[in-house]
């Protein structure tokens, strides 16, 4: 009844953050009730949660007031139909094709999935790779226990917004004791301006399984603003080994406010790589939640800002159970007048005895006008734990520079070598050779035209 009384707005003209707007998305996707209920709850949380402001501790260094959310289109079709990767536009493939052999590939363009491909061998293993909108119908028993439950509307204003408005979406499931040899890539591509996208990734690695999953966010650089409000939910069940790579390579017109949470159960192994080089203004939460005991987690990441880019990453090593180890190193470099904020939280909850957590952040200021903040936060509600952190921010070391120059390299080349080496320490842990080379190339690209300052 109420549906017919509302004047029908085409999806492509949706604008303004209203209940009607998300309901329209839900209706168009013919979602089951339980998904609609998730959106409803998220919407309620969104309405109740005040917009974060510079007065909030978490947001006082990141001013996103330039975001014109009300002016953006909330749903943009892909406009691309691809039966296989070769059908995808060259600009997109220049990101997704790394020289690695991909066992599966999902491409979301704007608000819709444009391609899903999964190798037959992986299909035969029972691996599922599907658009989320489809998986909620075909595999509710696998999706429902996790969707919106790892990243929840309670995680903040923007996770709540995401929960109401998500569209497109990628679901990946690896059955118990299954080793997926070839990596899987999820690419979110945005090729329009004045739009907002709400991409969702849900990866469930069941007991004892092994998988390598790469999430990539990329776009060309356009004139007007676009907004990305993604959420990633990863579940590594007991004994699962997950290698997860996130590459944020948005065009320079993109504002992103995102949230990622990876939950690891008993004896799970997690390797994460974060590579952030894109966007105009980016704030992301990267939350690692060690729900089980005996977890081993190894995190490496880097960000590289230039121009007037602003990046804000907050990582969390949340130890909820005993006997787990986590080791995190994030490196950053800042050029020109860019700005970066890194907050690293280690949280050892009550009862998480014998936790061994390490966190380090090292930043290189490549310009006197760049500014970086590094904020370690240790919340330890336990005695029997080992928790260490380190943080250092500085310029290219003059003695190292002299050492390299004494070996024949001019000042700029010497400095470049040092910066590349700085990042290489992180990039070398990336599980795929092609991606590794691509990230090294990205660093070189970011260095272009840079001159070492005296």
């Amino acid at each position, binding site marked *: 009844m109420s549906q017919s009384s509302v004047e029908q707005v085409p999806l492509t003209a949706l604008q303004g953050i209203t209940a009607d707007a998300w309901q329209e998305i839900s209706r168009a996707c013919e979602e089951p009730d339980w998904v609609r209920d998730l959106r409803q709850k998220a919407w309620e949380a969104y309405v109740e949660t005040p917009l974060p402001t510079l007065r909030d501790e978490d947001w006082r260094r990141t001013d996103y007031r330039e975001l014109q959310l009300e002016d953006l289109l909330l749903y943009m079709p892909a406009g691309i139909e691809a039966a296989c990767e070769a059908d995808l536009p060259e600009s997109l493939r220049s990101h997704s094709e790394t020289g690695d052999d991909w066992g599966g590939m999902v491409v979301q363009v704007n608000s819709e999935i444009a391609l899903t491909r999964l190798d037959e061998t992986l299909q035969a293993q029972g691996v599922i790779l599907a658009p989320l909108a489809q998986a909620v119908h075909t595999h509710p028993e696998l999706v429902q226990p996790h969707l919106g439950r790892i990243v929840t509307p309670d995680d903040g204003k923007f996770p709540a917004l995401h929960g109401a408005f998500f569209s497109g979406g990628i679901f990946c499931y690896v059955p118990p004791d299954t080793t997926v040899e070839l990596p899987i890539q999820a690419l979110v591509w945005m090729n329009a301006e004045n739009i907002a996208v709400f991409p969702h990734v849900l990866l469930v690695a069941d007991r004892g399984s092994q998988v390598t999953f790469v999430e990539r966010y990329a776009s060309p650089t356009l004139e007007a603003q676009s907004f990305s409000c993604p959420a990633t939910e990863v579940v590594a069940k007991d004994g699962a080994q997950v290698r997860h790579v996130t590459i944020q390579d948005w065009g320079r017109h993109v504002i992103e406010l995102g949230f990622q949470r990876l939950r690891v159960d008993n004896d799970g192994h997690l390797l994460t790589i974060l590579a952030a080089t894109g966007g105009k203004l980016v704030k992301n939460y990267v939350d690692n939640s060690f729900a089980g005991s005996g977890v081993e987690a190894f995190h490496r990441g880097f960000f590289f800002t230039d121009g007037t880019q602003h990046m804000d990453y907050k990582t969390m090593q949340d130890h909820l159970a005993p006997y787990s180890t986590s080791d995190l190193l994030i490196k950053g470099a800042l050029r020109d007048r860019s700005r970066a904020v890194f907050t690293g939280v280690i949280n050892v909850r009550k009862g998480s005895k014998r936790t061994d957590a390490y966190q380090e952040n090292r930043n290189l200021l490549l310009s006197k006008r760049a500014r970086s903040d590094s904020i370690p936060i240790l919340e330890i509600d336990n005695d029997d734990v080992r928790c260490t952190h380190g943080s250092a921010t500085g310029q290219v070391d*003059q*003695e*190292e520079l*002299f*050492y*390299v*120059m*004494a*070996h*024949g*390299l*001019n*000042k700029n*080349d*010497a400095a470049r*070598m*040092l910066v*590349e*080496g*700085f*990042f*290489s*320490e992180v990039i*070398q842990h990336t599980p795929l050779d092609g991606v590794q080379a691509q990230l090294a190339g990205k660093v070189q690209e970011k260095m272009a035209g840079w001159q070492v300052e005296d």
Partner: protein
Amino acid sequence: MATEQPFFLIDDLHVEIEENEILRGVDLSVKRGEIHAIMGPNGSGKSTLAHTLMGHPSYEATAGQVLFNGEDILERDPNDRAKLGIFLAFQYPLAIPGVSTLNFLRTSLKAVKQEEISARQFRKHLLEKMDLLKISREFAGRYLNDGFSGGEKKRMEILQMAVLEPELAVLDEIDSGLDIDAIRAVGEGISSLMHPEMSIVIITHYPRILHYVRPDYVHIMVDGKIRQSGGFELAEELEAKGYDVLLKEVMQTSS
């Protein structure tokens, strides 16, 4: 021979660090094929001289000149000096995390020689030198000096010299922190690389390494100046008497 212009000449070199004069008129003349040892107590200015020769920006030459093949190099950048054929083995080699020894040296050789060298060709060149110096090939893939022991770092400096084939090698306390066997290995490595077209200035506090890298001339530096020069026998005299006694004698004769 006497009329031949020395290919490396330091003439009345004065050097300041943060407006403190450290070198107070150093003179040294080196011909091709010669090995010169500069000895002296800690703090006498040996490393200051080495850094100045390579062009470290913190060291300001306030007077004098340094001629290499007749050209004053004091205004040159460190990389230009490397290209001219000057090599400095650092007393405290730096680690370059993220850059493998192989990549570092290949980039360095390309820059110094100003020519392309294929990865394969370079690898062969490097492994040959490693074998010659009895350095495990495994070091080629490791990040340069990252986590290396003191002795390993010193041997890497010699490996660099072997790869870059300089005309003039300045070795700053290449023996410090090494045990007896390592000193021997490093010393023999250096002398195996020596040839009549190159020259070595070996800076050391202790005479021991000079038994393997036998210098033609020995100079004693005290307080920023070379106070006495002689042949190998001066090193032997120092070994017998120690710095205290010898320096007293040296200072008496020079005053």
